[in-house]
């Protein structure tokens, strides 16, 4: 069943001068986890916020569960908020320091699920994310980073959403904590039948969480497909470069890898290159790439936006 369908979604800032997200299309099936990967400024967080309707899309359509939610007003959004929730990057910044954990988790519950027994539900959900019920009376600063992120997860889960947009949920955490949260999220998905849109810059993390991966570059999706395909046989040169740039924590294997180091920096959305946005950095770029923007087409079982995709 298609839970979420996005077509031609765009977001421009400064009166259209900056195209942060430029016409992307995605679908998420019920129970699916979609990884949205890319470097900073590629538009992945903006996309996540548009799906949450925290940002107004400039163009395109978002259909959730068969209903067009692109232009819902504040009041109509309420029922939607119950279905789609969000987990944020910085566990401390996302928890209001002036509220207790109980208030933080209880507030959306009171608003979105007024029928629930707040106290009991909050305690249950705290236990579910691995915290103690008595933690409800404490303030965020009394928790470690990993615990705080668990509170953030509890807040998202308490209204029983069907889809969770997780924006870099582990990148602010210490290495030894990341795995705890990744495992927790995996467990919850399995137990509660959730769908995720998992936004991350770290390909290694995404690989552990998501079944489908979308790689973004400068506001567009350049490759989207199943995990195995993307990681084993990346078709877009940018996907390959990304993969090769992530070091493997094994000296022998790492030093033996054939590496593809990209030149230059990711371009600015205020001043995008002509043709394929990746062309100035692309080792395979031909003259066509500088002139013509490639469309997202199916290559070897996944969609790729490249004139010369790798077809291994």
């Amino acid at each position, binding site marked *: 069943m298609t839970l979420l369908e996005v077509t031609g979604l765009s977001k421009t800032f400064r009166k259209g001068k900056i195209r942060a997200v430029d016409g992307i299309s995605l679908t998420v099936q019920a129970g699916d986890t979609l990884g949205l990967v890319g*470097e*900073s400024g590629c538009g992945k967080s903006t996309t996540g916020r548009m799906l949450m309707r925290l940002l107004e899309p400039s163009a395109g359509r978002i259909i959730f569960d068969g209903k067009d939610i692109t232009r819902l007003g504040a009041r109509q959004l309420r029922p939607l908020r119950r279905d789609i929730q969000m987990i944020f990057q910085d566990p401390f910044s996302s928890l209001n320091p002036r509220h207790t954990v109980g208030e933080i988790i209880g507030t959306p519950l009171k608003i979105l699920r007024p029928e629930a027994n707040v106290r009991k539900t909050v305690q249950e959900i705290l236990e579910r994310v691995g915290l103690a019920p008595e933690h409800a009376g404490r303030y965020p600063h009394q928790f*470690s*980073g*990993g*615990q705080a992120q668990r509170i953030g997860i509890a807040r998202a889960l308490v209204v029983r959403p069907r889809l969770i947009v997780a924006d870099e949920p582990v990148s602010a955490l*210490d*290495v*030894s*904590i*990341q*795995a*705890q949260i*990744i*495992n927790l999220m*995996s467990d919850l998905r399995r137990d509660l039948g959730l769908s995720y849109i998992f936004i991350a*810059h*770290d*390909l*290694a*993390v995404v*690989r*552990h969480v998501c079944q489908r991966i979308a790689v973004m570059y400068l506001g567009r999706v350049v490759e989207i497909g199943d*995990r195995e395909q993307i*990681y084993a046989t990346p078709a877009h040169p940018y996907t390959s*470069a*990304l*993969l*090769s*740039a*992530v*070091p*493997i*924590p*094994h*000296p*022998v*294997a*790492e*030093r033996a890898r054939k*590496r593809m*180091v*990209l*030149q230059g*920096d*990711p371009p600015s959305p205020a001043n995008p290159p002509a043709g394929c946005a990746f062309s100035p*950095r692309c080792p395979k770029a031909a003259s066509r790439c500088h002139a013509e923007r490639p469309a997202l087409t199916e290559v070897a079982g996944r969609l790729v936006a490249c004139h010369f995709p790798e077809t291994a």
Partner: protein
Amino acid sequence: MSLLEVSGLRVTFPGDVCAVDGLSFTLERGKTLGIVGESGSGKSVTSLAIMGLHRDATVSGSIRVDGIQVVGAPQDQVRRLRGRRMAMIFQDPLSSLHPAYTVGEQIAEAYRLHFGASRKAARVRAADMLAQVGIPEPRRRLADYPHQFSGGMRQRVMIAMALACEPELLIADEPTTALDVTVQAQILELIARLQQEIGLAVLMITHDLGVVARIADEVLIMYAGAAAEQGPAIPVFTRAQHPYTRGLLNCLPRLDGDAQSPLIPIQGSPPSLLNPPAGCRFHPRCTERTSELPCATERPAWRIASRGHHAACHLLEANR
């Protein structure tokens, strides 16, 4: 004589926070030592101690750079080492560069100071350095200000600045953490290339085991202000002796592992340095500790696992 010899280093901040407690290691000329640790493990504190840049903290023990003692030496003596014989680059190149001076000025400054070079010579040197770190149109860009560079380019400027006086030791404190992965790869490559060209010794401080695996000859794993394991990169990664090192390697999501199987996390959180656990500082989170061993009471000493490969763990003693 090693280029850098650190022994029994202890750094204490006001309020009795002991950020580094009895750390010893050496770094040979032309080699790379990777110091790995999570936030609060004391790795950055160590690097600042080597540079003699702590102002509020009490530093004790011994740090010798090419035989010259840094700890307790007169400020002026340490200052002459800084920039000239050892240089440092930082995590956030934007805030580490002065926003109001051109990069040319900032690169030339140290060169003029340490070599007594003329303004003009220093300018030429600065342009050379920019070219060397791969910044296009170096002459023109000398007059630019830091905010006019991209993140990766800024870090290159930092490196140019650090290397302008041909130091023997480069301390890189999380030089790629603030950068995108593709840019990180460029910077790591640049550092590796420059190291080869000048015979530089690099002290790479990072939380990323992958980065260390890529460029380090030696690895030092730090946990809560103390060394957990140290040795040449290959044995440390492939035959990790300390439960913390093993835990780190196991909990890391990686591109080459099994995507289906769950990660094995280290339980709990890193301890507070204000009130660190007694005995082995890792013992509250250690899954391998046993009640027979004095994990909770006694600080483990260095034990040799193999040639040059040490770990500070009671288990090692027991297994012997």
